[in-house]
């Protein structure tokens, strides 16, 4: 059999591009000793180039295919999630350039790009070995990124907490993988599914293996009860890292969660939809109720992101094309929204020197543009039209109703209302409260400004022009349910 190396290379073009970019950043870091800040722009330009190249050249066929010896599945899901990760990384790089303690550090960009590389593989992995390696390639750089500011005790502590939780959950997940391997004698996801279907493995054992695997994925998406790390890590990690963790890393978790559940466990659908629905309910309630009590904006966003994971899980629990496309739409909208939120929090935090919500008093007078951006972000997180968050919520709730999970949709709507309370409280402080420093304008650097403008335009665009992304995510949802050839 002839192996077409050129075509195989093209199939993993984004990953190869990222690897080359990592090499370039590593080498330039050695030579540009005085102007390392430029490394950020190099990374950004590289990511932009990879994004465009992926968009044009890596468009997969309609039917999914296995490639690289069955390690990678080429389909719309992998394609669209890679774009989400690369976009998230590019925006995070822009925020890092605006952050004085990160901008001049070449290794920051290096680790961020490595993590993105791992995520790209997570989105398309079709083999347990590939999946495990991709998850670890994503997570290990994130430990370092969370603990990046070694002089800041909070940062180091958040790094080690993230590491302990991640290592423990991934060990549990790996134990689940060993069971799947034991049941089937193969590590290829689609072959495992085949052999589970025709094998004589007791249902209870398969469900137990599924629970073990779900622990690892639940950690990545910070769903309750695997959420304990999130508030502490977001609080201690540098702002751009917290944003990246809450968006791209979460999206990667959902990509593998959906693929694993749909591909390996199609026979246990009734069990896992119930489990996912329960995880979703718990995440929504715990996230929203604890967020109500928060005085610190980073912790508020952390609990809000736990609740958002709950809404997205509704789409997974629906186990339908509409639900899955809702998940993808929601994740894209959430990526832009939460990255903008952490960008604004970083700017205000640096200017005011505090992350308390009370420090946002008078922001509408210090910087009307930032206040307006925060308004868009909070309303989008709360699910108010015409912003992107509304469409995401609409799709996942509609999917739940379509599949008869009406109780779940109702709980979701109730939680949306609870969540609006704390999102609007932040806006109240920004717009109605006065402070003594409100005549001092707030400086926004060009990098952070660019990133914010991209995010805000994206939020409004995804909220108004629904068709293109919805079409793509519907294609992706359809391919996820097919067996590849």
């Amino acid at each position, binding site marked *: 059999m002839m192996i077409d190396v050129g075509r195989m290379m093209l199939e993993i073009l984004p990953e190869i591009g990222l690897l080359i970019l990592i090499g370039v950043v590593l080498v330039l870091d050695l030579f540009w000793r005085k102007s390392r800040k430029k490394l950020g722009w190099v990374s950004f330009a590289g990511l932009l180039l990879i994004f465009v190249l992926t968009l044009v050249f890596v468009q997969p066929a309609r039917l999914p295919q296995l490639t690289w010896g069955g390690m990678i599945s080429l389909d719309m899901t992998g394609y669209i999630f890679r774009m989400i990760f690369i976009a998230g990384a590019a925006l995070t790089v822009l925020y890092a350039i605006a952050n004085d303690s990160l901008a001049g550090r070449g290794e920051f960009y290096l680790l961020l790009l490595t993590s993105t590389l791992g995520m790209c593989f997570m989105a398309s992995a079709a083999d*347990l*070995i590939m999946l*495990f*390696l991709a998850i*670890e390639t994503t997570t*290990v750089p994130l*430990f*370092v990124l969370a*603990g990046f500011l*070694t002089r800041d*005790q*909070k940062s*180091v*502590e*958040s*790094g*080690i*907490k993230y*590491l*302990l939780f991640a*290592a*423990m959950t991934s*060990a*549990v997940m*790996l*134990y689940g*993988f*060993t*069971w799947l*391997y*034991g049941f089937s*004698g*193969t*590590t290829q996801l689609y072959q495992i599914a085949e052999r589970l279907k025709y094998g004589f493995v007791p249902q209870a054992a398969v469900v137990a293996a599924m629970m073990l695997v779900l622990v690892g994925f639940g950690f990545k998406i910070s769903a309750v009860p695997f959420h*304990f790390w999130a*508030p*502490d890590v977001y*609080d*201690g990690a540098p702002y751009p890292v917290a944003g990246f963790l809450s968006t791209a890393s979460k999206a990667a978790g959902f990509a593998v969660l959906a693929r694993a559940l749909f591909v390996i466990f199609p026979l246990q659908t009734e069990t896992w939809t119930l489990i996912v629905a329960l995880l979703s309910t718990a995440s929504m309630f715990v996230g929203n109720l604890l967020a109500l009590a928060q005085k610190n904006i980073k*912790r508020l966003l952390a609990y809000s992101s736990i609740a958002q994971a709950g809404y997205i899980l509704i789409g997974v629990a629906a186990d339908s094309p509409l639900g899955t496309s809702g998940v993808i739409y929601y994740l894209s909208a959430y990526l832009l929204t939460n990255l903008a939120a952490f960008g604004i929090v970083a700017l205000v935090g640096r200017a005011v020197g505090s992350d308390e919500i009370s420090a946002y008093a008078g922001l509408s007078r210090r910087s009307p543009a930032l206040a307006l951006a925060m308004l868009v972000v909070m309303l989008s997180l709360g699910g108010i039209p015409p912003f992107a968050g509304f469409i995401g919520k609409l799709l996942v709730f509609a999917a739940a109703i379509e599949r008869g999970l009406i109780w779940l949709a109702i709980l979701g709507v109730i939680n949306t209302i609870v969540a609006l309370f704390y999102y609007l409280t932040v806006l109240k402080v920004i717009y109605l409260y006065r402070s003594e420093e409100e005549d001092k304008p707030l400086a926004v650097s060009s990098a952070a400004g660019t990133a914010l403008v991209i995010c805000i335009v994206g939020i409004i665009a995804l909220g108004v022009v629904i068709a293109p992304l919805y079409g793509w995510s519907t294609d992706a949802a359809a391919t996820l349910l097919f067996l590849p050839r």
Partner: protein
Amino acid sequence: MGIPVSYYLVLSAIMFVIGILGVLLRRNALVTFMSLEMMFNAANLIFVTFAAYYRVLTGQIFVFFVMTVAAAEVAVGLALMVAIFRTKHSIDLDQMSSLKG
């Protein structure tokens, strides 16, 4: 094969439980890391067992990757611990409380 597969599985389950209890109960960060290693090795044992049982190599290859990854994780963890030790002169996990949780 002289020893039945179930013996290996039981041993691995015992190792896994000891590991998980160690992570949850011990407060010394170094002991926690050793317990994590125990959990990874419990998984490795199952991989090797089934690789021998099915006579396919994928399980053994998986073990190589797991060992590499576990080493990388511990390397990063030790680096972070050194950074903490510099300021606190302790690696007791209960004392890492400058974050509220």
